[in-house]
């Protein structure tokens, strides 16, 4: 368990305070132990050998040469890989993804693991993997969206409907005074967390301990228990820190499991860390999409129809479909809606959830199409969005649990200076003659809730303990969840022992879907409330307590004391209450989960508006996003510093989506040709000279007891479209294939 001290002086209640991250000091001093930093006694190094072909089979591996290399201890291949208790190719539910675990010689995608070399040193293992010199029987890979006839998926994303419609879309289009139809394309993108997937695995009989970055430790435990046929109670997963996850660490990946198998094979602790290029295959990606949008509007600029179809790719052997059309169900008030998906199977690794899965790609296309429609109607793109503002969720007609999008538009536009925009493309220039473009995009991300449990305790010395197997991916869970815990127990942060990041703690659920703070926070809140209720019972039923008989008025907790609501002069410390009751501590558990009744009645989403300014060299096509202003409404803000940071990260990802990220695949081989951070571009500081996030106030009484919506993913949505729209406004060129690179603007 990491030793996280509270570095920050406290000011009043914790929620709402802009505390710096509590693990910051450890991280900048190298004191934070990431998975690959672990080095148990006797540990060996494992290195993957991965396939250079995308389809076929491994015909030969020179295992003898690898084994003969000094320092090599074992070579794990399908010949000797430990037997598994469950078929890793079995698909028992939509959230169990098929893994390639050396069960046969088949190759289904480039960079698929084909062997693991285990050695005394990393260098020996690396050279051993090289010496395997694989030979293949190669089949022509199927790459790209035109490689096969599309099929209709059973579901898209996380069990979302493949199709959802409202009204007669063709009638809506036919009756429109203005129509547009356009096709937008987004490329394959790879998560590329700074920290590669890594695992240190140790077996002790049938007990297993793994250090590995995970966004879902309980799921990882269950997957390992199933694959190895052991009791989940015998598995400990430790994941105190992640160097980014973005969805790629939500499910245990094949290479992580191979690390566990390697440790079993050699009966010693083993460390396995992916090389950067090995992350372009077996750990998921965002699939490419081709999205066709047809929009219609009446003479005034009110939408009459919105048809959003997504063609996307999944792997030859598993099902994950980027749900890019889904966002169009929730955003604009079109009386007729059609949102559909189709898929093709290609010879790549299985695509997976990647930060704002579906929403990011879908928003990039939808926001550009909305702009094209606004222009066709002769209406300012911000005004067009405000005119088509949905007062109820378009697909379901349910009211929103809360929606401060109007305020986002207004505050963002005011801060950005939108009213000074000149409407015509190519009509704005800076003093150096560069074309300036201003664009807007609406941001939306569903306010999800998962399932989580937490345990809270108050001890005789007045201190508190809150334990939850939550996940800090860098978003600040160590800090934000502790703030919720401190407030929940009525303690100052320095009186709280907050325990997290390990699977032997109560199930913290999944850090995904932008729902972790809301879900884990709700569990913590519930556990703390249950402890305080017990404490309150002890006091109010004890005639020696100043709180005796507080009765219906009740008590509340603050600074380690219970205080009567109806008479704040009457209070008692936790310490005194427990001492008189002769209790060393009291504890309770709590759960966080969606409220089915509320979710039946209300549509729940976070919203935002992003304004982008780009500068484009008129001759050379070079593009720079010179200004970004995002205004977001996502319920209660637990920590404005961390929330702002999340919005920045999301908006920068939007820059990346619009201008940079692109996995270049050679269709002849199926290999990604830029599998490194030198050539797979993401923005650098010079690409983001000015970024602002406005935290718009929003109170949501329905979403969960704390009123929290997620902030981790919404920043990407809206931003990519806003930038594309700004590039169009600057240049008059509508680039519908992302990323928008300078060659597409040369004309």
């Amino acid at each position, binding site marked *: 368990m990491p030793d996280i001290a509270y570095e920050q002086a406290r000011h009043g209640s914790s929620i709402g305070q802009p505390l710096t991250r509590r693990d910051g000091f450890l991280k900048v001093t190298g004191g934070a132990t990431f998975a690959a930093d672990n080095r148990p006694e006797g540990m060996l190094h494992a290195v993957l050998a991965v396939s*250079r072909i995308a389809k076929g089979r491994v015909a030969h591996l020179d295992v003898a040469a690898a084994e003969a290399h000094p320092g090599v201890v074992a070579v794990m291949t399908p010949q000797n890989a430990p037997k598994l208790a469950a078929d890793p190719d079995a698909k028992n539910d939509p959230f169990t993804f098929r893994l390639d675990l050396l069960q046969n010689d088949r190759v289904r995608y480039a960079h698929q693991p084909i062997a693991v070399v285990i050695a005394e*040193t990393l*260098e*020996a293992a*690396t*050279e051993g993997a*090289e010496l395997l010199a694989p030979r293949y029987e190669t089949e022509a890979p199927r790459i790209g969206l035109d490689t096969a006839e599309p099929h209709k998926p059973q579901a898209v994303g996380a069990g979302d409907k493949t199709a959802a419609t409202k009204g007669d879309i063709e009638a809506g289009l036919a009756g429109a005074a203005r129509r547009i139809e356009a096709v937008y394309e987004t490329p394959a993108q790879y998560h590329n967390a700074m920290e590669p997937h890594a695992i240190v695995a140790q077996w002790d009989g049938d007990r297993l301990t793994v250090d590995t970055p995970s966004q879902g430790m309980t799921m990882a435990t269950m997957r390992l228990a199933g694959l190895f046929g052991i009791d989940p109670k015998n598995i400990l997963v430790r994941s105190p820190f992640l160097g980014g996850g973005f969805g790629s660490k939500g499910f245990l990946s094949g290479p992580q499991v191979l690390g566990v198998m390697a440790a079993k094979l050699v009966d010693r602790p083993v460390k396995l860390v992916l090389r950067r290029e090995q992350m372009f295959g077996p750990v998921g990606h965002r699939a490419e999409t081709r999205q066709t949008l047809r929009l219609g509007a009446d003479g005034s600029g009110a939408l009459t129809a919105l048809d959003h179809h997504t063609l996307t790719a999944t792997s030859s052997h598993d099902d994950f479909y980027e749900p890019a059309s889904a966002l169009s169900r929730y955003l604009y008030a079109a009386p007729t809606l059609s949102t559909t998906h189709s898929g093709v199977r290609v010879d790549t690794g299985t695509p997976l959830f990647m930060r704002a899965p579906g929403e990011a790609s879908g928003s990039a296309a939808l926001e550009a199409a909305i702009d094209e429609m606004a222009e066709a109607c002769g209406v300012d793109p911000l005004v067009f969005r405000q005119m088509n503002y949905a007062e109820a969720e378009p697909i379901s007609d349910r009211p929103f649990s809360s929606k401060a999008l109007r305020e986002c538009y207004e505050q963002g536009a005011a801060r950005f200076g939108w009213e000074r925009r000149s409407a015509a493309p190519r009509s704005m*220039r800076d*003093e*150096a*003659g*560069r074309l300036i473009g201003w664009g807007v995009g609406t941001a939306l991300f569903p306010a999800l809730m998962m399932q989580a449990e937490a345990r809270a305790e108050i001890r005789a010395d007045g201190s508190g303990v809150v334990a939850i197997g939550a996940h800090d991916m860098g978003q600040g869970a160590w800090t934000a969840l502790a703030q919720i815990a401190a407030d929940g127990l009525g303690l100052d942060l320095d009186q709280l022992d907050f325990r997290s990041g390990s699977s032997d703690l109560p199930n913290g659920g999944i850090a995904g879907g932008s729902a972790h703070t809301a879900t884990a926070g709700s569990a913590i809140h519930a556990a703390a409330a249950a402890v305080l209720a017990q404490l309150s019972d002890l006091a109010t039923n004890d005639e020696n307590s100043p709180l005796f008989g507080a009765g219906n008025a009740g008590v509340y907790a603050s600074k380690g004391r219970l205080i009567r609501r109806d008479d704040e002069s009457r209070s008692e410390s936790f310490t005194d209450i427990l001492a008189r009751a002769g209790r060393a501590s009291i504890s309770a558990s709590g759960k966080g989960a969606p409220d089915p009744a509320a979710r039946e009645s209300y549509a729940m989403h976070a919203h935002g508006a992003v304004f982008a300014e780009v*500068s484009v*060299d*008129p*001759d*050379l*096509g*070079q593009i*720079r996003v010179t200004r970004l202003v995002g205004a977001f409404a996502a319920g209660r803000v637990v920590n404005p510093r961390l929330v702002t940071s999340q919005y920045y990260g999301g908006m920068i990802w939007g820059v990346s989506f619009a*201008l*940079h990220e692109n996995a*270049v*695949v*050679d269709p*002849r*081989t199926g*290999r990604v*040709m*830029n599998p490194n951070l*030198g*050539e797979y*571009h993401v*923005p*650098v*500081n*010079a*690409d983001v000279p000015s970024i602002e996030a406005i935290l718009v106030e929003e109170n949501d009484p329905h979403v969960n007891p704390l009123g929290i919506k997620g902030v981790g993913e919404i920043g990407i949505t809206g931003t990519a479209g806003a930038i594309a729209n700004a590039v169009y406004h600057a240049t008059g060129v509508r680039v519908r294939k992302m990323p928008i*690179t*300078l*060659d597409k603007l*040369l004309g």
Partner: protein
Amino acid sequence: MNRFDYVRAQTVAEAVSAASEPGAAYLAAGTNLLDLMKGGVTRPNRLVDVTHLPDLDRIERLPDGGFRVGALVRNSDLAYDPTFAKAYPSVAEALLSGASAQLRNAATVAGNLMQRTRCPYFYDPASACNKREPGAGCEARGGETRLHAILGWSEHCIATHPSDFCVSLVALDAEVEIAGHEGTRKVSLDAFHRLPGDAPQHESVLTPGELIVALHLPAASAAFADHSRYMKIRDRTSYAFAVVSAAASLRLDHGRIVEGRLALGGVALKPWRAREAEVVLAGAEISETLFRQAADAALVAAKPSGDNAFKIELARRLIVRTLARAAAGTPARMPALPASAFASEKDTLHA
């Protein structure tokens, strides 16, 4: 691991001797070589570490006014040397547009000349590459070629040389001082790198064991200092290799070009000196029409090597812009974004 010998040379003679063995490679900062070794792209059996050689880290002003830059001078140190940067501002600008600050702080000037192409097929050991394995073929042909060569390429290799620094140097007649078994020799940088022809594995004129010990910038080239610029088009604002780059240096007399120099980067397997354009510029009156004529002359022989015809038009426009920037004059201070289209200054074509 792949075993190799490591020799830390104490003298140039010792280094030359140690590196004359087949399979030996010089190691300076290693900013490129170590990546290549880790990726299995190159597998030298002997590394000759030259970082401890004496006196190779000096920037010297020679009596004739020219500069001699030691092979081990760091990119950053050269770019920020005020006397050097004043004499050859386009070289400083090119250096500061390359890589990242961390890499520039480590990388040496000789290493910059010796860096390998960033062709992805060269970097991917599973792809056929005539540079890695002579006669294996060129898998870049017909592959992903957006950034490949438009000048001087052959069926055997369509890669480009990635350097910014070399582009500015070749425009200014820089020479390479090379130590070998027979003492030292000097080769013009323009003649140093080879075009691929049918032997793309031979990248320079160096023979086994030969070691770059210094670069020479002639005094005469400092006469261009008031009108020397480098521009680099790239897919993000910083830390990216050139899609196309250009170095332009002009000597002016009352609005007339006495002599012009032009070189291109990202277009060929060597820094590309555009002498045809220089003929057009010599003695001519400054105008945008002239710059277009120069650009056309520079690109007469250009042809796409794949899906990269846009680079020809981009190069044409970039030449015009870079010549215009050079004509407008070297800025008093290095722009905040060196070599960028977004360099903050007020002397561009559209001012």
